Structures are given as structure tokens and as C-alpha cells.
């Protein structure tokens, strides 16, 4: 069996995507999940800042 979920190299950007997926996307059935994770907005702001930083700092393969 192939490993489609590993098709792309898992870089630091994809770690940040993991955070984006789990904290900012995904199914929400309860309002409590948003309220319960009071730090999420802060984490997401940091994520945005990190994504920007990652773009400047990480050498990207896609420069060709």
C-alpha cells in the first residue's frame, strides 16, 4: 500500500498546518470547544506569525 499522506515532505510548514487543522479547522459540534480552549486565538496569531517567519527563514525547495 502506498502512503499518500506522506506524499510531501513534512516540513516545519506542515507542522504549522497541523496546528491550523486541529485548532482552527475541523468539525465543531459544541460551542464549548472554542470557549474551553481560551488560548486558541493566541496560538493562531502565533501560527500566522510563524508561518510568515518560516517563509523567510526556511530554505525552500520550490525556488526553481
Amino acid at each position: 500500500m502506498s502512503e499518500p499522506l506522506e506524499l510531501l515532505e513534512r516540513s516545519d510548514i506542515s507542522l504549522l498546518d497541523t496546528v491550523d487543522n486541529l485548532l482552527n479547522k475541523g468539525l465543531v459540534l459544541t460551542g464549548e470547544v472554542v470557549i474551553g480552549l481560551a488560548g486558541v486565538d493566541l496560538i493562531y496569531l502565533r501560527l500566522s506569525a510563524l508561518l510568515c517567519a518560516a517563509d523567510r527563514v526556511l530554505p525552500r525547495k520550490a525556488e526553481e
Partner: protein
Amino acid sequence: MSAILYLYALVDGEPSAPLEEGIAGEPLRLLPRGGISAVTGALPARPNPDREILERQDAVVRRLAESFGAILPARFGEAFADEAALAGRLGPREREIAEALALVRGCVQMTLRVFGEPEPAPEPDTATGGPGTRHLAARRRQHEWAHSLPEIDPLRAALHPLLRAERIERHGAPGPLVGTAYHLIQRAQAGAYLEALESARGRIGGRRVAATGPWPPYAFAPEPAP
């Protein structure tokens, strides 16, 4: 004795592999309700979001995504007092969830980040109508702008034949990240997506894009009820 029922994902059908364990090593259980099933684990308390636990949940969800034909991953921290509480939340949204499961069946998500100079926001139209009409029109334009990325339109045109669905979010804050396009594609087409992306990459001027994936279809799970 467990205090909460932790939700990992909603799925339909039967898994093609054993469910195995959740983020705390707890056995995963499938709770069917109508045509939808919830993948849950019993935890002593709602987990705190640190890097390790997020990576563990990501691993659990990706494993589940390979095992079910259709999956809607839950946001981190979705927990319920018991099965009745979960059923109470699911009940009113069953149709919406079934539709979302049908949309994502056999699909994965690609995440496309766009970096560079943003286009300026469109000028407001010369307004007609009263103040209320103008206000509503302005609100609508703002909403449309927040969910558009004209910066990569030529790229999106090249990817379009591969897309089952698309969700766009402009970043809005200062910095090189202009926005993100979440693309839902057939699982088998991830390679074709990346090839199309590579061949069209030059069409967006000085801006850069970074694609990651395939991911489980997080961005295509229903939002909180309005």
C-alpha cells in the same frame, strides 16, 4: 473511570483496519447513530493543546482517514459528558453532516499558502440606495474579499479541473502571508495536483505558493451552527 467522551472524527461505513488507540493510549470506540458513526475515546479530562498532544491527535486522525472512505475530523478539544450528550449535539445536524461526508468521500485536502504582496482591496462602488443598503453592500464586499485570492487566480484556473471543493481565507494581517486556499481533491489525484501546481507556478508573478498535504479534509468539516 473516565470523565469525558473525546471525539476524534465523524465517519460512515466500517473501518478497513482496527481502530487502535487514541491520544492517551485509550482504546477507540465507534458509536453509530443512523448512518453516521463517531470515533471516540474515554479520557479523564479535556486535553491541553501542546505540540506533542496535537501531533498525537494528528497521527490518530490520519490513521483513521486511511481506514474510512469518508471522514470529518473534529476540532481539537471536542469532548462530551457522555454518549447522550454527543447524540444530542449530533441529532440536529445529522443531515448537514451526512452531506459533508458525501462531499469528502474519497478525498483529501491540499493546503496552499500564498506569500507575497497582496492586491489592494477593491474600491467601494459608487453607492446607490440608502445608508442601510450601502452598509449591507459594503459588508458583503468585505466578506467576499476575505474569501478570495485574486493573487493566484491563474493558478486556481490550472488546478480547477482537479478540485472537488475549495475554501479560501485571506490572512488580513500584515506580513508576507497573503492567504490560504484549502483544496479538496480525490485522494488518487494528489500527484496530479502537485504537477499542475508546479507547471502553473510561474503564472502568478513574484508571489510564491507553498503546498502541503495530502491532509484529512479538516477545512471541509461543518462550522459551528449559526
